[in-house]
């Protein structure tokens, strides 16, 4: 037991007592405590186990610079994993358990792993678990690794607010420099936002042993806050700036209390001022990971903010001149402090779970706590996120911000200015974008050279158990670049993210290579600065609000008809109608469509109008097929290619009049086709002579398909001559339905005569009920998308993207005429005449036939050529169904040189299952088109 609570003007509310549990034992604390400060006050030293060797660890820092004490915390029904003990504020009733330890951090059965540590150096995994196969070891290692356990109920009601704001000046860090800057900047009325990750502003002022600008630290902070607020500045507390992104976007995460989803602020700032301060660097010496060895600034934070004295008999080991506040504050609190300078004096920490002494030059100095301070490291993470450069300052042995840009500044300790008065002046100047006053620097630091080739273990990364020896090994094996070093040893890879371990690791590497740290360089700093829950990025974009589907105007009617709704190409559409067995229902719909008439909601089909004096020339250029010769009133099937000659979409195109076309593209590709049309229109044509207008959602379309389609259409009050001669396949008519305009296109996606009736969306319900009423006597059936997919496959009609892939050209799917004959330029034209396009082994669309007694082929199964020494895939099945019409399985496939293989037998392979099929033409139904054209 070494820590204790003392009476001072700390920031906790001593009037109230909170009760909590840690590893099964009950403790008390006060509002304002963190879990770590309350445990330290109760004399608890061991708060966690290291990741690899399960060594006992106490806290190193008092805030985000600690990665040893990580707890799973339960409070009421909430269980949250991986909460840092140093940044989680205490709440009454919390039950905390250290992660990575069982049954407790004090007695952990996996501690025996440490005995094997000589056999587990850096790179051990990479060397050992290669043979016979990593996957053989993976499950066990995964089980042993990892920290807290995630409970599914964590996400119940856990939803982050996301706030988008902007400001003139964002000041990050409300320490002395930040507060002084915010006062100065807010005076002239500019919109200032000051953020700080603590719930009380002030930064390092509570560590001071003396006044600040002739006032007590607590009073000084209060006055700055009052001034900033009076001037209209805003202060966000419990808010961490964890990343700076392009164009001055700063991500802020605001803690709202335990088990509440934090709030994300996306703050766009004209200027950013980084006043994040500096943190203490560990010192590498023998056994420097023992519980009770902590940073000097951490001890002062515990004292100043929480009234916790970390020990009774303290040894201070440092390598720099600025330890006065530490010694004075601890003396004021009545503690003896023995000071030692780190150097060539081989310090060794003596003791196990309880520290007994610090040996220096072989002389033993009894102590219960060792404070280590290897120098100050400016927190330049955000500076680097923002793209600011760093330079190595040999005098203060630190990387500091180099050149300032107009919108990015650093001030105070983050800028390498450690004297209090100088830091205040630096902050005030930076606030007004004035040059920094030339700072006097009394800070002195001895470049620290870690002791190499030592037999004792000296720890660099406390969380991942990386030692000086591991870094020496990495250097020996030529992982000498800092980025390689980091990945080989896992140095600075966990939640610490190098905050404490980075500089120590670099100094070891510098020693090994006999270079300066500046020459060794530093690893890249990336967001997030502190761990953040992924939830903050999700916010309200969940379930129905995550990529919401487009809804049909007739959705109510479909639901009334028992439609099973599914998402197809971004639309919520009826997959089938009825509640029985899905496949039987779908098959029944197919049969009804073939024998009687199908009613299909085809509203998602594209309806993009192309209008203007250049419209004909334009569509003729953008599409593969010749459209300039299309007569008004006629419809033509056309493919849209990319400039690489690859089929992007297929469409039926109606010419309404000389200067007006309607592009009815696939429902899933409407946005893409529209974008392509707009891009060619604006960047390639005169945009004043052709217009593109997407009216897809303005019109609802009901398709009637089947032998009785004409009979059904004739029952509707639409005045059109339906005789085959007056209204042949691939033509359209304009008429009226209930005094609204109606367009009827005779096109087919089923192989049977079909009519697509389009009316303005408002009139869709009237048309739907008229069609259903008239359909009753004709045994009409509602048909969903699944049955439609079978109907079109029976006819050999493709779905682009399903029956084609990223290599399919139009002549691969049977459209070779325009490639050879079209007289004018079109998108992708030259690409259709490359060597690859002319090759005779291109994959072509074919049909596959198998006996009625067999199961259907698996979509994606490979068509194998077994004639060579090694079997080779020559294509694959793209669509496969049990055809209700033909009462046998059918399939479409892409097959190398398939056009000349009609009638051949082909081997079909799927995950070891080998089948035989006969190659056919892709069309299985009404091959001569007699029914279609009837």
């Amino acid at each position, binding site marked *: 037991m070494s820590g204790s609570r003392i009476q001072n003007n700390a920031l906790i509310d001593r009037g109230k007592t909170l009760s909590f549990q840690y590893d099964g034992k009950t403790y008390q604390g006060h509002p304002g405590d963190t879990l770590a400060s309350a445990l330290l006050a109760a004399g608890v030293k061991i708060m966690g186990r290291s990741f690899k060797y399960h060594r006992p660890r106490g806290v190193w820092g008092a805030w985000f610079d600690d990665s040893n004490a990580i707890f799973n915390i339960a409070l009421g029904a909430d269980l949250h994993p991986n909460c840092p003990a140093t940044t989680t504020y205490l709440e009454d009733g919390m039950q905390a358990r250290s992660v990575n330890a069982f049954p407790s951090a004090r007695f952990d059965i996996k501690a025996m792993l440490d005995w094997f540590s000589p056999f587990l150096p850096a790179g051990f995994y990479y060397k050992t678990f290669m043979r016979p196969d990593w996957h053989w070891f993976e499950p066990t290692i995964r089980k042993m690794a990892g920290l807290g356990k995630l409970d599914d109920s964590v996400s119940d009601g856990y939803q982050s607010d996301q706030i988008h704001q902007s400001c003139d000046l964002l000041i990050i860090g409300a320490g002395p420099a930040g507060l002084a800057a915010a006062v100065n900047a807010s005076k002239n009325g500019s919109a200032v936002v000051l953020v700080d990750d603590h719930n009380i502003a002030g930064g390092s002022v509570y560590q001071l042993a003396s006044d600040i600008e002739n006032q007590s630290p607590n009073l000084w902070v209060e006055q700055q806050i009052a001034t900033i607020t009076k001037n209209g500045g805003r202060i966000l507390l419990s808010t961490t700036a964890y990343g700076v992104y392009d164009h001055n976007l700063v991500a802020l995460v605001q803690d709202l209390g335990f088990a509440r989803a934090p709030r994300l602020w996306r703050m766009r700032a004209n200027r950013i001022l980084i006043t994040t301060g500096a943190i203490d660097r560990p010192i590498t010496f023998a056994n420097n990971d023992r519980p009770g060895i902590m940073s000097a600034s951490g001890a002062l934070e515990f004292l100043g903010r929480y009234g916790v004295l970390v020990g009774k008999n303290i040894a201070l080991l440092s390598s720099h001149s600025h330890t006065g506040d530490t010694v004075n504050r601890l003396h004021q609190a009545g503690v003896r402090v023995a000071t030692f300078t780190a150097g060539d004096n081989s310090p060794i920490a003596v003791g196990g779970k309880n520290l007994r002494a610090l040996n220096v030059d072989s002389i033993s100095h009894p102590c219960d706590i060792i404070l280590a301070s290897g120098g100050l490291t400016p927190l330049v993470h955000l500076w680097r996120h923002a793209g600011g450069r760093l330079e190595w300052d040999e005098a203060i042995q630190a990387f500091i911000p180099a050149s300032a840009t107009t919108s990015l500044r650093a001030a105070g300790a983050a800028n390498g200015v450690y004297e209090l008065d100088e830091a205040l002046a630096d902050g005030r100047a930076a606030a007004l974008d004035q040059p920094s006053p030339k700072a006097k620097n009394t800070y002195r630091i001895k470049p620290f050279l870690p002791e190499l080739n030592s037999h004792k273990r000296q720890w660099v990364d406390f969380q991942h158990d990386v030692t000086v020896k591991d870094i020496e090994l990495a250097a020996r094996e030529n992982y000498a670049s800092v980025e390689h070093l980091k990945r080989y040893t896992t140095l600075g890879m966990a939640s610490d993210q190098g905050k404490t371990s980075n500089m120590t690791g670099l100094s070891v590497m510098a020693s090994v290579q006999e270079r300066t740290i500046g020459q060794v360089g530093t690893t890249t700093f990336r967001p997030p600065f502190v761990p953040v829950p992924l939830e903050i990025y999700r916010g309200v974009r969940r379930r129905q609000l995550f990529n919401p589907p487009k809804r049909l105007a007739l959705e109510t009617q479909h639901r009334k008809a028992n439609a099973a709704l599914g998402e197809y190409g971004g639309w919520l559409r009826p997959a089938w109608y009825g509640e029985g067995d899905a496949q039987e229902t779908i098959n029944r719909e197919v049969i009804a469509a073939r024998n009687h008439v199908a009613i299909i909601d085809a509203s998602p089909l594209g309806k993009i109008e192309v209008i203007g004096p250049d419209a004909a020339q334009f569509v003729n250029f953008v599409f593969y097929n010749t459209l300039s010769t299309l007569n008004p009133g006629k419809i033509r099937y056309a493919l849209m290619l990319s400039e690489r000659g690859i089929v992007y979409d297929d469409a039926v195109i109606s010419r309404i009049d000389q200067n007006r076309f309607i592009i009815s593209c696939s429902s899933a590709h409407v946005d893409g086709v529209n974008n392509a049309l707009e891009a060619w229109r604006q960047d*390639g044509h005169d945009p004043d002579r052709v217009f593109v207008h997407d009216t897809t959602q303005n019109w609802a379309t009901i398709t009637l398909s089947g032998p009785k389609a004409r009979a059904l259409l004739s029952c509707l009050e639409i005045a059109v001559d339906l005789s085959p001669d007056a209204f042949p396949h691939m033509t359209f008519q304009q008429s009226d339905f209930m005094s609204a305009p109606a367009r009827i296109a005779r096109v087919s996606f089923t192989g049977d005569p079909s009519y697509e009736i389009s009316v303005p969306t408002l009139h869709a319900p009237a048309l739907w009920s008229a069609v259903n009423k008239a359909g009753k006597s004709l045994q009409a059936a509602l048909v969903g998308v699944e049955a439609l997919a079978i109907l079109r496959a029976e006819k050999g009609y493709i779905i682009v993207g399903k029956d084609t892939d990223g290599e399919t050209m139009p002549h691969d799917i049977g459209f070779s005429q325009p490639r050879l004959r079209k007289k004018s330029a079109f998108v992708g034209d*030259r690409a259709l005449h490359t060597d690859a396009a002319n090759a005779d082994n291109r994959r072509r669309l074919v049909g596959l036939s198998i006996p009625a007694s067999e199961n259907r082929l698996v979509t994606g199964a490979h068509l194998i050529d077994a004639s060579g020494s090694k079997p080779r895939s020559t294509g694959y099945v793209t669509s496969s169904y049990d055809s209700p019409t033909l009462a046998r399985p059918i399939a479409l496939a892409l097959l190398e040189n398939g056009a000349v293989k009609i009638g051949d037998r082909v081997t079909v392979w799927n995950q070891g299952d080998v089948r035989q099929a006969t190659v056919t033409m892709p069309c299985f139904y009404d091959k001569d088109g007699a029914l279609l054209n009837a």
Partner: protein
Amino acid sequence: MQQFTCPFCGLRNETEFHFAGEAGKIRPDTLNEVSAEQWSAYLNHVANPMGHSREVWVHLPCQEVFIMQRDTLTMAVLGVEQLRREPK
């Protein structure tokens, strides 16, 4: 998150924009002989300049296609131009 200026709508977040290619690329006249090398250069050759870059972008909500100049190193937007010529 970068911010770009659409000539039609003004300053918007980059998620509203699509990159459409480097500016100044001329489509070969495919009615005349185009060598495989010329066509390949048209399809595949991008300069990817470090620093000043001139590019075609699309603002998806309004579908304006325009030219943007930016610095690929500093991410600074140097200016935007509309493609449309003023009516004669």
